[in-house]
Every structure is written in structure tokens, then in C-alpha cells.
């Protein structure tokens, strides 16, 4: 099993405040890695660093070495937009654009230069099918995406991310704003997707981590405390702090 993303000695500061402390991790390919840890421990921050979404926040300083398929993602000749095409993102709150379902999915491909109608039609259909929402929306592709339910919107956002053909999908608590039924649909979907994609998923729900992930990383106060196969982390944690957290002693 090879690793898609390798992180060495990464630190991150928001101004004076250090949010990530010396993290080392290797994310295995075509599997699901879950990030768990109490609120404010830096999971989202770390996740967003992987496709450089933190660039948008002023005053962020990052040190260390992050490699995606062997290339330094902070190298001068890296095109951030291409990096984000390779490493897609799904956010905590579903955030479809206020446009039609079709245009939402076609947004990414159009951004990367695909303009032919037939080609776009195909991408839209395939992406929606892969995100298991095609049957629900195929008759209303021209309708505004904001009219969908929360769960549908989130699957639409997953479809939108898939439409640019990424290799890695970063998901930041993708089900935290959804009801249990929508949540389990997304979990099924994510399990399906790992055949093709590498998935990194932040979750505050430990059952979810156990249900879907192959690997689990436990963060605490900006540090990566422990990383390993999910069954190992939850059955025989090496670190006292991990044990305390997964047995519900804090967090």
C-alpha cells in the first residue's frame, strides 16, 4: 500500500497562535482515513492545509514538508488550482452554489476548460450517479440546487467535487449537519468511493470513524497523538490520551 500524502514536521500558526504542532503522517492510498479529536484540536486546520485552502486566511504561517505524490505542495512552481483539482474538498455545511443542479456540477469542469455540451452532460450524469443522487435529481437538473434537502445538497456537493476527477477527497465533518438517514447514505457512499479515491474525513462521531474508516488519526491540542489502523486504535490504543478519549473520558 503506497501513500498519497506525506507530511513531515508540519507546524501551523494563526498569527501568534500555534494550531498544529509538529505533525507527521502518511495517508494511504484508496482508503478512508478518519481524523478524530475534541473540538478545536486542529482537525479542520490540518485538513485544509492538505489542499492549501488555508492560503485564503490571512496571517497563516506553515512550516514543514507536505508532499502530494512526491511533490512539495508549497513549491513555487505548484499551481494551487491544479492541486485543488487533484485534492477536492467537501465542507461541513453543504454549500451548493445558488445556481442550477447542472451548473453546480459543471462548475468545476468548466473551470478547468471543458466547454463541450456533450462532454459536460456526460460528466454531470456520471458524477451524480457516483454520488448516488442521480435518480433523485435527473428530472430537475435545471432547477436551483438550493431547493434540495440538506442531505441531497451534501451529496450534490460530493458529486460536484467528483466532477473534476480528483484523486483525493477531503471531507470536513460531512454529516454533522445532517439527519441520521442522510448520514448513513453518505457513509455508504463514502465506503463506495474508496475503491476509486483516497478519502480523508474529519468526524466528531467515533462510531462513524469505526464504521467507515480504515485508518484513524487522533488529534489533541494541535498534536497528532496516535495514528494507525482503525481497529487497532479503538481496540488497543498505545497512548493513554487516546484511550481516555475513545472511552469517553473527555472531549
Amino acid at each position, binding site marked *: 500500500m503506497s501513500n498519497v500524502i506525506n507530511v513531515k514536521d508540519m507546524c501551523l500558526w494563526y498569527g501568534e497562535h500555534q494550531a498544529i504542532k509538529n505533525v507527521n503522517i502518511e495517508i494511504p492510498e484508496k482508503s478512508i482515513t478518519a481524523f478524530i479529536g475534541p473540538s478545536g484540536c486542529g482537525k479542520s486546520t490540518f485538513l485544509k492545509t492538505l489542499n492549501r485552502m488555508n492560503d485564503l486566511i490571512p496571517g497563516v504561517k506553515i512550516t514543514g514538508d507536505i508532499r502530494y505524490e512526491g511533490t512539495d505542495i508549497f513549491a513555487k512552481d505548484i499551481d494551487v*488550482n491544479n*492541486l485543488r483539482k487533484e485534492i477536492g*474538498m467537501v*465542507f461541513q455545511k453543504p454549500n451548493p*452554489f*445558488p445556481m442550477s443542479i447542472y451548473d453546480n456540477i459543471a*462548475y468545476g469542469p468548466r473551470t*478547468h476548460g471543458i466547454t463541450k455540451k456533450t462532454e459536460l452532460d456526460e460528466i454531470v450524469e456520471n458524477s451524480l450517479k457516483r454520488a448516488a443522487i442521480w435518480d433523485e435529481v435527473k428530472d430537475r437538473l435545471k432547477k436551483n440546487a438550493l431547493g434540495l434537502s440538506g442531505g441531497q445538497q451534501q451529496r450534490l456537493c460530493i458529486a460536484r*467535487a467528483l466532477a473534476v476527477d480528483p484523486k483525493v477527497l477531503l471531507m470536513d465533518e460531512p454529516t454533522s449537519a445532517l439527519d441520521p438517514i442522510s448520514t448513513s447514505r453518505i457513509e455508504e457512499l463514502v465506503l463506495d468511493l474508496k475503491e476509486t479515491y483516497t478519502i480523508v474525513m474529519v468526524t466528531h462521531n467515533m462510531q462513524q470513524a469505526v464504521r467507515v474508516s480504515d485508518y484513524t488519526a487522533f488529534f489533541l491540542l494541535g498534536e497528532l497523538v496516535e495514528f494507525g489502523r482503525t481497529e487497532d486504535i479503538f481496540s488497543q490504543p498505545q497512548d493513554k490520551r487516546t484511550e481516555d478519549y475513545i472511552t469517553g473520558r473527555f472531549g
Partner: protein
Amino acid sequence: MLNRSLSKKRRGYEVLMKALMLLSVGLTAALVLFLLVYVLIEGIPNITWELISTKPSYLTGHIGILPDILNTVCIVIATLLIVLPLGVGAAIYLTEYASNKKVVGIIEYAAETLSGIPSIIYGLVGMLLFSNNMGTSLMAGACTLVIMNLPTIMRTTQESLKTVPQSYREGAFGLGAGKWRVVRTVVLPGCVDGVITGCILSVGRILGESAALLFTAGFAHTMLTFPTGMKSPGATLTVALYVYAKEQGEFGVAFAIAAILMVLTVIINFAATAVQKHFEKRKNI
């Protein structure tokens, strides 16, 4: 006992305050209503098709305000054509691109201050800056109005840019869109309402402006054509109102113009509210 007398006192105080407030509301409403009705009663009988469809002639003593109407339209169009790209561009730069928050703050403060300056000062500066170079003309007037309305357009656009959810921008960046694509496809469509509101407010302001134009655009009632006539002087409706009332003692004509302007202002206010309501509704889908 003590409590009861205290609460009685309080209640009396409440009633008094309420009465005073009602009185001020009543006075305000009465004043506004009186003004509206008075102008309309004095003005409407004087509005004839002849008045609004002909030009004046000093030879026959005939009065027509068609040139003034056209001048007004020309100046509104010219001002908007210049001020829109400037104001919207500045707003986009300040909210989406500028990274130095201090400088942004100073510019926003300056814009705020600029919009509070008496318009006669704009007229004075406009005269030195524009009329002395391109002559007293509609164009010089429009340029002066551009400076006056730039803060309005900029601020309303900025305000509505700030209401575009950050999550839209994140979503677009996350798909690998560049800055300009994000602005053009996700941010700008979300601020159309602000731009339209700004436009409507500006049109209202231009219609009502006289001091700044007296200095810069002049008093001519000659027929002009857009855009070549922009180089010549011309009076807008408001300036014409001043000229007819003050210099020719034609109060009937002045009130006719006043009534027209008043009706237009009311329409513009309704339009601004309607636009805002319309977009608010769309945002809540």
C-alpha cells in the same frame, strides 16, 4: 401603598411620553403630506403635453421643458456609465482583493465622509476641475456627479458583497477556481441587488441635484442629442426649476417641474424597496 403611588407616577410618565411621541409622529406625517399635496396641487394643473414636449423660445415667450428632460436623462445615463464601473470595481477590489485592512478602512471612512459633504462644494471643485477644462457642459456636470455618487455605489456594492456567504467562495476555490473566476461567477451574481439599489439611489440623487450642476453644467435650455451634446451646457430639471422660479418668476412652470420630480422620486423609492424585497425573497429559497 408606596408601590402603588410609584407605579401611578410611572404610568403617568409613560402616557406623557407616548403622547409626545405621537405628537411628533403626527407633525412629521402632516408636514410631509402637506408638502406633497401642496406641490401636486400647484404643479399638476400646469403640466400640459405642450409643456413637456416642446422647447422654449425667447422670441415668442413660449416655455417648454423637453430640453431639460432630455438633459436630465443624458446626465443620468452619462453619470451611471462612468460611475458604475468605477464604483463596482473599487468595491470588488476592496472587499475581495485588498489585503491591507488598514488602507481599506481608511478608504471606507473617506467614502463615508465624502458622501456627507454639501453638494455645493462638489460644484465648486467640479467647476475648477472639469468646467475650466472642458467648458461648462453636461459632461462636466456628469463628471462632478460621478465624484458625488462614487461613494454611494461603492458602499452599497461593498455591503452586498459582504452578504455573499464565504462558503460559496470556499466551494469554488476548493474546485480549483482562480480568484477572478470565483469573483465573476460566484461573488458578482450575488451582489447584483446591491448594484441596482446603488444605481436607483444615485438616480434619485442626480434628479435632486442642483447646486453641483449650477456650477458645472450651466443653464441652457437648448435641444441636445446624446452623446455629442454632452460637450454643450444644459440645464437639468432641477436647475430649470431654479431658473424658472428665481429668474423668470414662472412659478407655474416651476411647480409643474417640482411635481414631476416629486412623482419620480416616489417611484424611485418604491423601485429601490421593490428591488431589495425581490432579492431578499430569492435569497431565502
